[in-house]
């Protein structure tokens, strides 16, 4: 068990809006570990679309993804890839 932290730039054109936030929460929920998502010092539960929306993450900011728990390494890798691949929206 360990904590994994990754910092990823948010390149998505409109920022972390509904669809992107939803995809993130959906993917995060598939893992047992805890997932936290932070922007500029504010950190929320990464499995909650409601909380992610309140980050108001605009394009260009750095997202901090941190995971903690049994499958934390796998989770952080998958979530980082999701952000880097622009939430599958090109």
């Amino acid at each position, binding site marked *: 068990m360990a904590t994994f932290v990754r910092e990823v730039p948010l390149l998505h054109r409109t920022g972390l809006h509904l669809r992107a936030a939803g995809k993130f929460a959906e993917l995060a929920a598939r893992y047992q570990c805890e997932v936290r998502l932070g922007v500029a010092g504010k950190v929320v539960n990464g499995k909650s*679309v409601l909380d992610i929306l309140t980050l*108001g993450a605009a394009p260009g900011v750095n997202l901090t993804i941190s995971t903690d728990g049994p499958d934390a390494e796998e989770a952080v890798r998958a979530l980082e890839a999701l952000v880097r691949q622009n939430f599958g929206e090109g």
Partner: protein
Amino acid sequence: MEIKRGIGVSPGVAIGAAVVIEREGAGIGRTFVMPDEVEPEMERFDEALARSRAEIEALSEKLRKSLSDLENISDIFEMHRRILDDPRLRSQVEALVRNRHFTAEYALSQVMRRYVKSLESAGDSYLLQRVRDFDDLEQRLLRNLRGGQKEEIGHAGKQVVVVAHDLMPSQTVSFDRDRVLAMAIEAGGRTSHTAIIARALRIPAVVGVGEICNAISDGDRVIVDGTGGIVILDPDDVTLRRYQARARSLQVIEEKIAAEFCNLPAVTRDGRRVSVEANIEFPQEVAAILQYGAEGVGLYRTEFLFHAAERPPGEEEHFQAYMDAIRALGDHPITIRVLDLGADKFDLGYQERNPFLGCRSMRLMRARPEIFRQQIKAILRASAFGRVRFMFPLISTLPELREAMAMVNEVKAELDGARIRYDKDIRVGIMIEVPSAAIMAETFAREVDFFSIGTNDLVQYTLAVDRDNEHVAHLFSPVDPAVLRLMRMTLEAAQKAGIDLSICGEMAGDILYTVLLVGMGFQRLSMAPTAVADVKKLVCSVSYEDARRVAEEAMQMSSATEIEEYLRGVTRRFIPELVGD
């Protein structure tokens, strides 16, 4: 009997029993449960969650079938579904119920309020728009917590008139169009969500009515006149009979006129040709407008491409939409208007105090050049495949126009370089909707291929009136003498320069103004598709000579009311069956 005036946003007359839709949120006080009631309280909340989820599933399923033309509305439900499934929603409500013994209703409203607050403070325009979705969802959950059945109005088996303060987006789209006869709404304006959906579903609707919910109970008889913008509560027998006759005859007349005129060209009795086109928002509307007898698309409002997506549409999305329209149009022409959006659609990093005088429409080109470039490129590419022309909205000064034209030329050069085909003679025009453009029309006429007068904005900017503001809406009239003079200046400038001119505001589709417009000299009108047959009939009923005399007479008058009254009389002379009292 009580007569209320509002803004008619979707034409037609309907009479029926009211169903008043109340807001659920009103008056949720600090209410508590006993410690031993915590478990049942949470069970109640879970049931409400489950019921809301099931409703949303059913709604989006139903809409997929019945409203495929508005498929993007399903995004509303996507949001709701994701929030309902969010474990944090339940856990926070549970914490308040368990630790502070709040009732589920009170806990829910507290949790939702917290989220709305933090969305608002994020200062992002997109999130601000989503606040309404949160409100919408909260209403649904509260209703289910209270075991309410109001959602079922569309399924009651009986036809009803919906009366509400305001409708949530998910409510409006969920109405069954066979059951909802009409809508009367206290709040809202012409571009409100309700208005757009009502028009799409062809349900008569009046918005901005002011207080009616308290004056009316379920089952009361209501008349909604969406053409006249009137709602009549508890009509007396005479009024009722008059409107019954009107509702019946309107339907019969509309069908008759449509059958008779939709396929005929509009030509005055002395042979002056007037071309009648339609305004569209979606390419899918093209088939319908041709059935209505429109001779082309005089105004394609491309904003829907923008509203439908979370991010600005790219070149390909624009191109595909234009190609869909062009294919359906065949040989008929189409005029595409470049995105006409408010700054609120973009995060410019500041709030505008006066958006209508702010960085809207073409003025956004400096802040977001890429969005415009991609659209212009898509329009040019599409021009290789059909009779396409395009126009810039809200041009107010010549340098603005030149800046826009510079971008067109750059994009053309780019296409030339890449050997991509487009119509080299494509016509580029501007909307005349700011008084400065009308005043300077002679100068503009030397630099563009056509003008299209957008009467809605021209009236608003000339008279400084927001017609969605019920306190000043009475000042809004397209036939205010000042507006008519600006229109005449524009017309004369276009004639002198020999360029094409059309009118694409709502005025063009209002039969009250048809004789006047023909008489002033306009020969190209673009309107809501449902108005096409009526306008054609009116054009065919007058001679240009007579219409000219009417226009001259009207231009002598000094107030909008006087002109409206005069034109009502004139129009009644030509088609009495379509003009109310």
